[in-house]
């Protein structure tokens, strides 16, 4: 579409991206690359991480985003990062469906990123993420207790509170983004976050 040189400034690039510039998409995508990777790492089922790397999903996501760039221009109130996150989410569902078909009946339910609501698997995903990171057993075992306490604590929380923590710390979204994803007011999201973290601190002390 546009063959003029696209500005490297993310805000301007987003505007150009909304106008349909593929170059702008490349800039915006690489700007958010590591954050998207973090989301993929968090949501990618541990059973298929051996077959599919986070870089594979990133690459595919980029291609998918380029194909659907037109959609983005129609969603004027959608921040670029959250739009890319949706693309990544869709792709994750495809990847899971492809690789775990035999094992699962309803993949969508398993991996769906919470678009407007909560994923029932968040606390499990958190535990898998934490346990899966350490390669030496020393770490696994040393952390296991803490991870387990954390998981117990998360399980005792309200669904939205738990999702808020997952989005803020494991997908590393900002408060504004979190609010948008969960479809709640930013002030309410803040309130929930602070409350959930205070409860976490309290419960963790109780466990210790």
């Amino acid at each position: 579409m546009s063959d003029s040189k696209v500005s490297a400034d993310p805000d301007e690039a987003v505007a150009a991206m909304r106008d349909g510039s593929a170059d702008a998409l490349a800039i915006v995508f690489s700007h958010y690359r590591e954050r998207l990777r973090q989301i993929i790492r968090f949501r990618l089922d541990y059973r298929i991480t051996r077959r599919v790397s986070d870089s594979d999903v990133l690459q595919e996501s980029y291609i998918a985003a380029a194909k659907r760039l037109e959609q983005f221009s129609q969603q004027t109130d959608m921040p670029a990062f959250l739009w890319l996150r949706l693309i990544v989410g869709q792709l994750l569902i495809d990847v899971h469906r492809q690789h775990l078909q035999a094992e699962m009946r309803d993949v969508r339910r398993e991996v769906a990123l919470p678009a407007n609501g909560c994923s029932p698997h968040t606390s499990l995903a958190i535990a898998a993420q934490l346990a899966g990171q350490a390669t030496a057993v020393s770490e696994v075992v040393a952390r296991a207790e803490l991870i387990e306490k954390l998981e117990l604590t998360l399980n005792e929380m309200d669904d939205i509170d738990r999702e808020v923590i997952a989005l803020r710390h494991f997908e590393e979204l900002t408060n504004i983004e979190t609010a948008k994803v969960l479809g709640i007011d930013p002030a309410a999201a803040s309130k929930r976050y602070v409350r959930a973290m205070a409860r976490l601190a309290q419960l963790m002390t109780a466990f210790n």
Partner: protein
Amino acid sequence: MCTDENQIELDRIAEEFASAIRCGETPTIEEYLDRYPDPSGQLTALLSSVAMIEALKGGTSKEHSNLADSIDFAELEDYVIVREIGRGGMGIVFEAIHKSLDRRVALKFLASHLLSEAKQFARFRLEARAAARLRHPNIVPVFGVGSAAQQHYIVMDYIDGTSLRNLLASSADEQPPIEVPNLGTQHYFDWVAQHGATLCSALESAHAQGVLHRDVKPANLLIDRRGELWIVDFGLAKLAEHSNTATGEVIGTPQYMAPESFEGVYDVRSEVYCIGLTLFELLVRRPAIEGKNTADTIRQAIVGVKQTPRQMDSKIPRDLETIVLKALSREPAARYHSADELGNDLQRYLGHQPIAARRTRILERMIRWTRREPVIASLTLSSFALLAALAIVSAVGYYGTHSALATAQSAKQAAEQSLELKIAALTAADEQRTRAEKNLQVALSAFTEIVENIAGRGIEVDADVLGEVTDTTAPSVSPQDAVLLQSLLGFFDQLAANNDEELLSESAVAAQRAAEIYTSLGELQHAERAFSEARNRYHRLCELHPDDTTFILSQADVLNELAVIAGLRGELAQAKQLFIDTRDLLHASDPAMELADGIFQLARAHRLFASVGSRSGLDHAMLQSSLAGSSLQRHHWIKRLRTEWDLDAIETAIVLLNSLVEESPADHRYRAELARAYRTKAEVAWRAKTRAESETAVRRSIELFEDLLAENRGSAAIRYELATTLLCTETLGFNQMVRAARADELCRTLLESSPTLPRYQSLKARSLQNLARLQLKIENWDVAEAYLKQVEAIYASLRGNFPEVDVYETQHAQVVESIADIYVAQGRTDAALEYLEQILRRTPPRLRSGLSPAAAIQYQRTRAKLNKLRDRSSSEVNATEPE
């Protein structure tokens, strides 16, 4: 007061703090508190949660990629880096030139997360110093440690060669970097044995200097160009241990860890095991433990090596295999006791001498029993020979059921003669009377012995070590033993029916034995009747001999047995009454309470009371819904169930048992009962939703049983108990995987020894249910369904074979319900309905009189579910059909 602005500001600070951590900075909470006052303590709580999550998240992958970038080689004044040699869990290794000394060295940079604290660094220096002192021609010398630009490194001798790991990884057609004999040849196996012997001698010398390697594996063994073996990284693995864990020294790579290391136990014998793993891998060219993922690897490592080298390559010499397998024994005590012993056996193999290790003899265990017949041996009466023969034959078991039966019959006749004689002699001369009495006592004690042995056979011969092992689940005998027991039953019943005051104590014992037999056979109503009979007799005896504590203790024992049955039948009101009776009985007798056995029976009573709920087979949801005041509450008995009472009771039991264990730490009975008490506490606390407390209790119970298992190797009773504990709560998360795997393994071992034992069948059902729960958590419906269908089949067969054991009825109904729930969760209401109806047709609930309350409640619940499904299904049909 927390206003909205206040919350938003707090959130902003947290976001700043989190992003600082993610950028690799190390902000402290104190810094932030200096900047932002925190009168309410909210910020402190918030930031500590953030720090905790982010710290847990920070894995090794980030550390590693950053490490190579962050090393500022310019600062390594005296060294010139030549190239990167390798990287691993501990850090990155470079080949370097030490300029002033002009020698080639290896620099190992440690991943910074290992040494982030000053304390850890101090320890690292200490460890490195210990390693540096080691002098052995096969240990890579350490020259010193240093640090530059926040990075710590170890300087060691450069070995020109390759690690065994690389050697193993290189494919067959690839030219290995050093010369190795052709695979699968005698020459190759000798080469492995030779290096194994060298490894042992080097490790032995380190052990003699008080240093354990702690991470023996192919990656840490180098072969230089001359073909010499070198060990690197002495004691370094210890650094990976977190300083703040309570678990002790759990370190290493799961693939190369001894089973006990997962429990924080590590000694020379663990190192022997790791040598075994390395030799195994060299022999078959594949790791002995190979999991699909970390969790799977850990699971396998805990279970231990299952395959034998020759199963994978039959060319491997048998003696060499025997040596490796001895080193790989799951129990440390069964391994070589030192690296030296292992090395010596390898040398013997190389020198074509007979090796010291021998293959385990299967018969060994069988013979053990015959060593314990002191009671019988001390008697010299005419019927002794018969009885002794009977006892031994029946104990040796399945091999001679028919002859044992024949012997039992004639022995029974002899005993019955004694009984008749005794009755006749009541009026006759004293001498004859005494003789008949003695004969009768011999018969009684010998038969008692037999009953105990048979009752204990499923659980091997430790019934006398552990006391009441036939806890929660009846029945526990094989069909063959059942025939044998039934033949004895006649004798006991006959004796028990005798109302003669002179024979009161004998008939009490007989009634008790008969009841035990009925329990073993799963005939609970008969058992209950016989125990009640025994209870009355003992009660009368207590009145006649108020000072004799044995009768009080026997009565307490019988009362507790009745409580066991009441629990199995879910008779909560009755269980409570029995508990009160036992307590009052024991409290009323000071002399009995001075005895350890008195305290033991009291503790048992408390535990049995607290565990009635869980033993009745009612699941947690049901107990809870009953307590929460659902329609089921009209069952007045369930109102009596108060979790607080249970908690009080079990606390008392634990205090009592702890005092007993403290007094006589060698008594396994007390320890086993204490472990059971912790299990009950875990179940009750889980129901009370105090999960942390529950978890602590589970751990304590596991610890105690694991200790007992280590001391009584091969004890099926303890295996069974341990597995029961592992399955007792629905723990969440990581530990559940490990525990599920352990339980599954224990269950398999038990079933291998006695495939038909109902008790193990039901254990297997519980293990499968646990696995199904794990699958349900990730909505793996199909797999969960398959597991539960197996469970259904097990319970269906058990309830068919043992119609009086209502627990099976209850559990069967529960699993059927769970399967229906799976269909409902998938939106397949019709399938659920169809399934329920089909099962109810095939195995209709038994609504006989005397059905236990627990089973009755479960039955009601199933009916309610069925009706609800019918309603829903018909409303769905209506909704789709146009009017």
